[in-house]
């Protein structure tokens, strides 16, 4: 059992062999075929076909292309030593290694002179982040409808993968609701008196005292009041119209008070009856923004001894509250679009359609992110007549048209046509390129500059492309790359889900601060074009007072974040940031295994294989509880070779960070035990603490660069990477290293790569 090289070591060996220039050539007939015959073909032949896999091919020229999935399984099973099964004859390690190398060569390495496949991305719908940003940038409104959308499906570590994103009926319904709401905000549609009428719903009212919803109204049987907040679109004169009725009794009429914000109350005597309510109007001047209205009943009356039973009890009910106005819309409060729409005087029919088309053409072009033909525009413009036919205004019709544009598949999906012969390769056209660029770097729609460059065709020129990338990375909208890419690459979104145990006193504000720190760090590397190795060992970060206290950094006060140096502190890059340390922990303790796995996946780009099917029970007698330190207990778990093969990789990496507790605070003791942050990696490298481990990781900067490039290319393309993308990645890495691993180079090389600028034409 001892001395056998483990699978993970094997993977590293293989990885190293791929980096080396010379590749060992393994001969199928001489070395691999006999191996399969001896150890595998008994079960995995054309007849028996155990688990649907056969290894008994006479020749293998096509099998890797046609049967790739199965060969990947064979590769996994073999190197992980899950196959042959325990009871069968086991091959020698040397034999196993050789066949694994052969498999890896056939599955992963590729002759870049022969294979030039840029891949094909399946049509991608906008995800939540992209939808919100797109609405913000198209219309300049702060409304974020996608916050209520269901979560996006994640694949390949990202939520923007075309093949993976689904469109359920629930989501379609939300798209439709959102489209209508956006249209209402963007286009102002007053009624015939040129006044907008907005209902404040009854259930928006918070009852302060003794009111309840009865028979479609809010009813007060004794003195009481209710409050609701409402939005006022523009400064101006308004009317609050309240439909009110009362049960009358006693010598005076029921009295209602209406108060807006903290200002003077208006008092009204209500003569209308509950069964026949009437509108009562309250005039006032209001400023744009949020206000509160309070409606109350102030003269309750109850005389059970009154002779007429209908004169015993005075109550008040109101049935609807409408905000009407403003009397005159201040012209400077309207957007150009709103003014344009209100200025139209067109008859229902072709005149209205033409007016709508004139206004909508530039909008549709931006919403669909490309040139549009007039037939198209007319179809959407024609919808104005639907509303006008119902007696509504042109403006209202424009709202309907706009809402339909916003649920068109040409908006919701990023369309890249399949023109050309099947299997052929074509260049991405300038408009498609504009969208790819803006959704990559901004997670948002192309701006006017990108669209004009697309229109003129200049965008595809290398020089122009390069300067646009630089412009985009400086633009504030590049925060979209942080929110879209960085948060997913680093698994930051998981930070929202963690629930550290109460003993840690982990507040939501600390959680937010941690997210901010890591985001700002990434943004700094991005905007200042720093080397990506800073993610590993950069000696700076961003903290506010709360976080500085958390990290024991002196002289930081106030809630604002500022750049601080980490020299002379035990902190390095992102690896020791509170965010990462917390999201890789259990609620009540650290987890070296999870931390090790995180580093392997996101920094080194080698995902550990899945645990085997039947994880054997830990021998209870051996598990000492409370007597041994946590680390000692973990080491017991690795006594079984099946577990050890992968845990020998994950655990040491995690042990190297044991000086940071489950919420990232530095510690030298874990309970009663001293922290032991030493370890040995399967390569034999030893480290005595975090600093040395980080140095080892830094020495693997090429591996890190490959890992980051792979992730970024995946995100930029919106598809999983295939073996043929290896050529593009290799090319990117050469240029990246030449520019000392600086961030802008990475982005530029990704954009200049074949997979980004071209696509394969899909089958019919």
């Amino acid at each position: 059992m001892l001395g056998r090289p483990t699978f993970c070591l094997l993977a590293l060996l293989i990885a190293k062999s791929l980096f080396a220039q010379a590749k060992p050539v393994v001969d199928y007939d001489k070395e691999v075929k006999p191996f399969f015959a001896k150890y595998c073909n008994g079960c995995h032949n054309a007849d028996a076909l155990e688990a649907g896999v056969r290894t008994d091919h006479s020749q293998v020229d096509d099998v890797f292309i046609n049967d790739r999935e199965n060969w990947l399984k064979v590769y996994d099973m073999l190197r992980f030593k899950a196959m042959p099964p325990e009871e069968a004859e086991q091959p020698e390690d040397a034999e196993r290694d050789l066949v694994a190398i052969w498999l890896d060569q056939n599955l992963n390495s590729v002759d870049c002179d022969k294979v030039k496949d840029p891949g094909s991305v399946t049509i991608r719908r906008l995800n939540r982040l992209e939808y919100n940003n797109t609405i913000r940038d198209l219309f300049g409104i702060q409304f974020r409808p996608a916050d209520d959308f269901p979560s996006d499906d994640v694949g390949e570590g990202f939520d923007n993968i075309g093949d993976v994103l689904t469109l359920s009926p629930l989501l379609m319904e939300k798209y439709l609701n959102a489209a209508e709401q956006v249209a209402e905000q963007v286009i102002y549609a007053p009624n015939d008196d040129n006044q907008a009428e907005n209902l404040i719903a009854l259930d928006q009212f918070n009852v302060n005292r003794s009111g309840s919803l009865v028979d479609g109204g809010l009813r007060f049987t004794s003195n009481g009041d209710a409050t609701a907040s409402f939005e006022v679109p523009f400064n101006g004169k308004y009317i609050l119209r309240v439909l009110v009725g009362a049960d009358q009794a006693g010598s005076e009429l029921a009295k209602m008070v209406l108060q807006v914000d903290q200002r003077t109350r208006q008092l009204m005597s209500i003569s209308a009856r509950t069964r026949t309510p009437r509108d009562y109007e309250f005039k006032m001047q209001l400023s744009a923004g949020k206000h509160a209205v309070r409606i109350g009943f102030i003269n309750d009356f109850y005389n059970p001894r009154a002779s007429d039973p209908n004169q015993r009890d005075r109550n008040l009910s109101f049935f609807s509250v409408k905000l009407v106005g403003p009397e005159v819309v201040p012209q400077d409060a309207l957007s150009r679009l709103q003014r344009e729409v209100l200025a139209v005087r067109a008859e229902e029919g072709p005149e209205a359609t033409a007016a709508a088309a004139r206004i909508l053409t530039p909008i549709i072009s931006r919403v669909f992110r490309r040139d549009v033909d007039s037939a198209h525009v007319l179809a959407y413009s024609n919808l104005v007549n639907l509303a006008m036919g119902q007696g509504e205004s042109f403006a209202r019709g424009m709202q309907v048209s706009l809402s339909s544009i916003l649920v068109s598949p040409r908006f919701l999906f990023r369309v890249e046509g399949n023109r050309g012969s099947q299997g052929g390769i074509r260049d991405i056209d300038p408009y498609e390129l504009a969208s790819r660029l803006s959704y990559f770097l901004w997670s948002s729609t192309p701006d006017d500059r990108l669209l004009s460059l697309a229109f003129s065709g200049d965008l595809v020129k290398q020089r122009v492309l390069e300067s646009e990338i630089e412009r985009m990375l400086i633009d504030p909208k590049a925060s979209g790359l942080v929110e879209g890419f960085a948060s997913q690459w680093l698994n930051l979104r998981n930070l929202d889900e963690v629930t550290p145990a109460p003993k840690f006193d982990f507040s939501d504000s600390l959680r937010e601060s941690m997210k901010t720190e890591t985001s700002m760090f990434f943004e700094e590397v991005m905007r200042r074009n720093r080397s990506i190795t800073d993610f590993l060992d950069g000696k700076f970060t961003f903290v506010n007072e709360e976080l500085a206290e958390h990290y024991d950094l002196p002289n930081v006060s106030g809630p604002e974040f500022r750049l601080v140096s980490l020299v002379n502190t035990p902190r390095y890059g992102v690896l020791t940031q509170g965010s990462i340390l917390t999201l890789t922990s259990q609620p009540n303790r650290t987890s070296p295994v999870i931390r090790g796995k995180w580093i392997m996946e996101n920094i080194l780009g080698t995902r550990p294989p899945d645990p085997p099917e039947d994880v054997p029970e830990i021998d209870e007698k051996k598990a000492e509880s409370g007597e041994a330190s946590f680390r000692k207990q973990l080491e017991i778990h690795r006594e079984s070779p099946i577990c050890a093969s992968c845990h020998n990789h994950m655990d040491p990496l995690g042990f190297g960070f044991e000086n940071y507790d489950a919420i990232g605070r530095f510690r030298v003791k874990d309970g009663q035990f001293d922290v032991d942050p030493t370890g040995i990696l399967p390569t034999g490298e030893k480290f005595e603490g975090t600093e040395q481990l980080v140095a080892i990781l830094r020495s693997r900067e090429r591996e890190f660069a490959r890992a980051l490039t792979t992730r970024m290319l995946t995100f930029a393309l919106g598809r999983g990477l295939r073996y043929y993308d290896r050529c593009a990645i290799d090319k990117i890495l050469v240029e990246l290293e030449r520019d000392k691993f600086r961030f802008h180079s990475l982005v530029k090389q990704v954009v200049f790569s074949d997979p980004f600028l071209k696509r394969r034409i899909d089958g019919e």
Partner: protein
Amino acid sequence: MNKLDRRTFLRGTGLGVGLPLLHAMNPNTSVFAAAPEPPPNRMAFVFFPNGAIMDSWKPAGDGDSYVQSDTLKVLEDFRSDFNVITGLAQDMGRAHGDGAGDHARCASTYLTGAHPYKTSAADIKVGVSVDQAAAEQVGSRTRLPSLELGLRQGRNAGNCDSGYSCAYSNNVSWKTENVPMAKEINPRLAFERIFGTGEKTDESRRRRDFYRKSVLDLVRQDAQALVEQLGKDDRQKLDEYFQSVRELELRVQRAEELANIERPELELPENAPSSFEEHMHLMYDIIALAFQTDSTRISTLMLGNAGSNRSYKMVGVNEGHHQLSHHRNEKPLMDKIRKIDLYLAEGFKYFLKKLKEMPEGDGSVLDNSMIVYGSGLSDANRHNHHDLPIVLAGSAGKTIQTGRHIVLSEETPLNNLFLSMLDRLDADVKSIGDSTGRLTAIDT
């Protein structure tokens, strides 16, 4: 099954007649104010993650004189309204050569009985779930074909379970084998989907629906033109768009045919509540109201996503649920899980009480429902997909004999229960997952 005869006339009369006619005759009043016809059956499926401690879940004895278990004792007040069923399994949740990923399989097989295709990215595939199989057949009889709810969206960064896409862990309802039915986690939004926002009058809602018909029609045509330009994989994606648009069009149509339902009263916070208990109760409230008003007859609720590592501080459990479920048979850890099991069962009691207190016909809404409360795993330490913890509440119009502990032979497919449930909704479904027939043990 003799009760089926009472419903045959409903099936025969087709869409838009029968029950919907009742609405049109009594606008703006509760549907069953004067219902001469028998109330329809409903089905709901509640899912809790990470299984349960089975020795505390399973009652002793069988039949109707069984001894209630520790975990389910909290439901004793409603003993005559439910059955505890032992012996059910979802065999397709087992690895069958795919290695690890039992939690992803737990959730994705729970209502489908199909083996999910192991992928972390593209080509997600499992099977149609029982609720959607029902919705496909009979969903058009109500305003909303079905209602999918949950308490958390679910992790959506990185891998969710050993090489399985997060879609498998975060959904129990699957419309097709590739498309999960996204769940709503905000109670207010769920409520508004069913009952409207209250900001609009009937008149303006009708007008909005009128416009929506044309809007949907136009974009569907545009999509048809678009499809011409696209490749095969793209067309499959556009298909989802088409289906969803079509679904919405049908819903608009139904809203026109069915009279308006009066909006029930329910105090709702703006966003999803931070208190688990409040959140859970609100979702139960909403399903109950939806059933009571016949807004839908089919619903699913995920109390947590598969493999959920949520801690339950309110019952003194500070560790993560998933973390604990690998208890290695250690009593202190198992006791903590027992607390979680008990707490969630108490939540379910809230739901039963709500349904029982809604009078309907000569009984209650609960009497005309079938509620499954369970998980796709039993012992989560061993990742067992058999001997599942399943409670079946409600008698579906007295066609299910309740108040028993039904002990079946081991490995009875859970999907057999689903077929029996589908029968009682008049959904004509021949098989689901690895079903082998009906579960006649529940019949009266």
